[in-house]
C-alpha cells in the first residue's frame, strides 16, 4: 500500500520535472556564450561595456553574454540548447551542433586564423617532412588535427606516418616542456609559449592555409528565424567593437588583453596572426566568396574521415552546408549549417 502511494507520487513528480524541449518562438531573453581566444575577446568587451545591452535594447530584447572556461563544453552547452548562440570555429560548428542535428547559422564570421594555429617541432632546422615517425601531441579531432592533416598533405605524408597523442589544450605547453615531447600542434596563446621553446621551430601554421580555420558566432537557426532582432543586435554590437579595434582604441584593446589574462603587447601580437574582418563589407565578401564553399568541402571531408559527422553519415556529403545565395554543399535535405550574409549586409548598408 505504502509502496504504491510512493510510486505514484514519484511518477507524478517526475512527469512534472520533464518539460518538453524548448521550441523556438518569439522571446525577449537570449543567452550567448563565448570562450577566451584572441578573436573572441570583442564579445567580452561588448558584454562588459554594455555595448550588447545597448543594441539589445534598441531591438527591444535582452541578451546575456556568458563566458565559459572550457571551449568544448561551451559548444556542447550550445548544442544541448542551453544557449542561443556561441563562439566556435567552422569545423567545430560542423562536427558538434550540425552533426548533432542542431540547425545552426554562422551569423558573424569574426576572423580567421592567419598563423594562430601552428605545428612546432623540436630541433634546429627541422621542416614539415620531419613529422614522419613522430609522436604528435595535439587535441584530437580539433582544428589542430585538421591543421596537421593539411600540413601532412603539403609534405606528401599521411596520418599513418605519425602517431597522434591526444593532449589537452590547457596542458600542451607544459607537455612540450618535457624532453620526450618533440612535436605539437596547438593554437594561441599556447602556441606562442610552445614556439618560444629554445630549439623549437614552427614548421607550419595556419597562415599557409588562410581562411580555412574560421572563428564564428554561431546562432540557432530556428531561434534566429523567429527573432531577427537577435541577429541584428549581435551584429550591430560586434561591428561597433570592430570599429574601435580598427581604430586601435587603446583602452578597448587593454581591456581585452586584461580579460584574456595577458598584456597589451602580447594581445596585439596575437591579433597580428588573427585576420579580423573589421568592416561588414569585408565579412560579406568573405562569406560570399567561392573559396568558403571549397574550404567547407575540405572540412567536411576531413570530418567524415575522422567519423565526426555522426554514425549515420554515409559520406562527406551527409550534412548540408548552405552559403549565401542558396548554394549548398552536400545533402541539401539535411542542411544543418548555414553561412548567412543577411545581417552582415544590413550592417554594411548601415541599416542596423
Amino acid at each position, binding site marked *: 500500500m505504502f509502496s504504491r502511494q510512493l510510486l505514484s507520487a514519484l511518477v507524478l513528480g517526475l512527469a512534472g520535472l520533464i518539460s518538453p524541449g524548448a521550441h523556438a518562438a518569439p522571446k525577449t531573453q537570449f543567452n550567448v556564450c563565448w570562450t577566451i581566444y584572441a578573436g573572441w575577446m570583442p564579445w567580452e568587451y561588448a558584454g562588459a561595456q554594455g555595448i550588447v545591452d545597448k543594441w539589445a535594447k534598441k531591438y527591444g530584447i535582452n541578451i546575456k553574454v556568458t563566458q565559459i572556461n572550457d571551449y568544448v563544453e561551451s559548444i556542447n552547452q550550445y548544442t544541448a540548447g542551453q544557449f542561443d548562440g556561441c563562439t566556435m570555429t567552422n569545423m567545430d560548428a560542423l562536427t558538434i551542433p550540425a552533426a548533432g542535428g542542431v540547425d545552426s547559422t554562422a551569423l558573424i564570421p569574426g576572423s580567421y586564423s592567419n598563423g594562430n594555429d601552428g605545428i612546432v617541432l623540436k630541433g634546429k632546422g627541422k621542416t614539415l617532412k620531419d613529422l614522419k615517425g613522430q609522436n604528435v*601531441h595535439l587535441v584530437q579531432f580539433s582544428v589542430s588535427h585538421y591543421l596537421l592533416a593539411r600540413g601532412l598533405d603539403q609534405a606528401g605524408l599521411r596520418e599513418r606516418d605519425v602517431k597522434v597523442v591526444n593532449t589537452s589544450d590547457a596542458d600542451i605547453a607544459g607537455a612540450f616542456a618535457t624532453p620526450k615531447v618533440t612535436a605539437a600542434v596547438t593554437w594561441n596563446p599556447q602556441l606562442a609559449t610552445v614556439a618560444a621553446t629554445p630549439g623549437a621551430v614552427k614548421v607550419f601554421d595556419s597562415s599557409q592555409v588562410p581562411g580555412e580555420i574560421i572563428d564564428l558566432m554561431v546562432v540557432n537557426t530556428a531561434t534566429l528565424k523567429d527573432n531577427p532582432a537577435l541577429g541584428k543586435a549581435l551584429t550591430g554590437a560586434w561591428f561597433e567593437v570592430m570599429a574601435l579595434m580598427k581604430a586601435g582604441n587603446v583602452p578597448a584593446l587593454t581591456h581585452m588583453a586584461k580579460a584574456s589574462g595577458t598584456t597589451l603587447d602580447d594581445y596585439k601580437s596575437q591579433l597580428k596572426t588573427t585576420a579580423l574582418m573589421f568592416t561588414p563589407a569585408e565579412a560579406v565578401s568573405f562569406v560570399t566568396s567561392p573559396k568558403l564553399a571549397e574550404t567547407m568541402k575540405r572540412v567536411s571531408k576531413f570530418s567524415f574521415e575522422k567519423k565526426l559527422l555522426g554514425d549515420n553519415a554515409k559520406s562527406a556529403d551527409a550534412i548540408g552546408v548552405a552559403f549565401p545565395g542558396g548554394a549548398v554543399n552536400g545533402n541539401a535535405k539535411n542542411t544543418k549549417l548555414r553561412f548567412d550574409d543577411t545581417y552582415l549586409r544590413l550592417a554594411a548598408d548601415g541599416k542596423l
Partner: protein
Amino acid sequence: MRFVNRQPGHGGRWLLALLPLILLLAAYATGSALRLADNPEDKLLPSAAQMVEAIDRMAFTQDERTGDYLLWADTAASLVRLGLGLGIAALAGLCLGIAAGTFPLLRAPLSPLLTLLSMVPPVAILPILFIVFGLDELSKVMLIVIGITPVLARDLEQRAREIPREVLVKAQTLGANSWTLVLRVVLPQLLSRLLVSLRLMLGSAWLFLICAEAISATSGLGYRIFLVRRYMAMDVILPYVVWITLLAWASDHLLRRLNQWCFPWSVGEKP
C-alpha cells in the same frame, strides 16, 4: 503505526531498493525520447538502441585504423595503469604507515610530512609531474601513486598506533626485537586494514586515472571519454561510464573477498 517504526517486508525491501534505479532509468528514457522526438540527431541523451549500437561498435567491431577492439584495448590500458598505481601506492603506503606508526623516531619527521602531502591536490601540480616523470605511462601511474599514497600511509599509521601498547610490550618481553615486532605483530594487523583502505581509495584512484588520461594519452577509458566528448558522443560516453562503474564495483568486491579469505579474523563471525 508511526513512520519511524514501519519496516519494509522482504518484497518491499527489494522494491524500495530498485525503485530509485527504475525511476532514474524512466526519467532518462522519457527525457531521451522527448529530445529525440524533437531532434532525431540529438546526441545529448541517446536512446538505448543507439547505445547498444555504440557498444557493438566499440567492443565487438575491429577498429578500421588500428585493428583493435577499442573497448577492450582501453580497458586493458586503464586497468594496467590502475593496477600498477594501486600496487605501488599500497606498498609505499604500507612501508610509510608502519614506519610512522611503530617507531617514534621515524614518526617525528614522517607524520607531519605525510599530513602535509596528503593535502596537496595532485591534479594542480600536474605540469611538474610531467617534467619529472614525462608524459608516458609513468606519469599516469605516478599521479595515482602520489594521489593516494599519503592518505593510505596516514590511515595505516593511525591503525598501527591503535595497536594496544600492552601487545607490543608483551611481544618484547617474549624476546621480539624491532624487526620481528613489525613482522609478527604490526604487519599482519595492518595488511587487513590495507585492503580496507584500498577499497575506500578506489574511487579516488579511478578519478586520478581518468584525469591523467584526459591530459595526454593514446588509449584508456578516460582517454576515450575525453576524446569523444569532443563531438558529444554521449552514446559512447554513457556505456563507458557504466562499464567503469562495473569495473570499480568488481574491484571493490574482489578486495573485500580477498580480505575475507586472507584475514577472516578481521571480518568477524558471519551472522
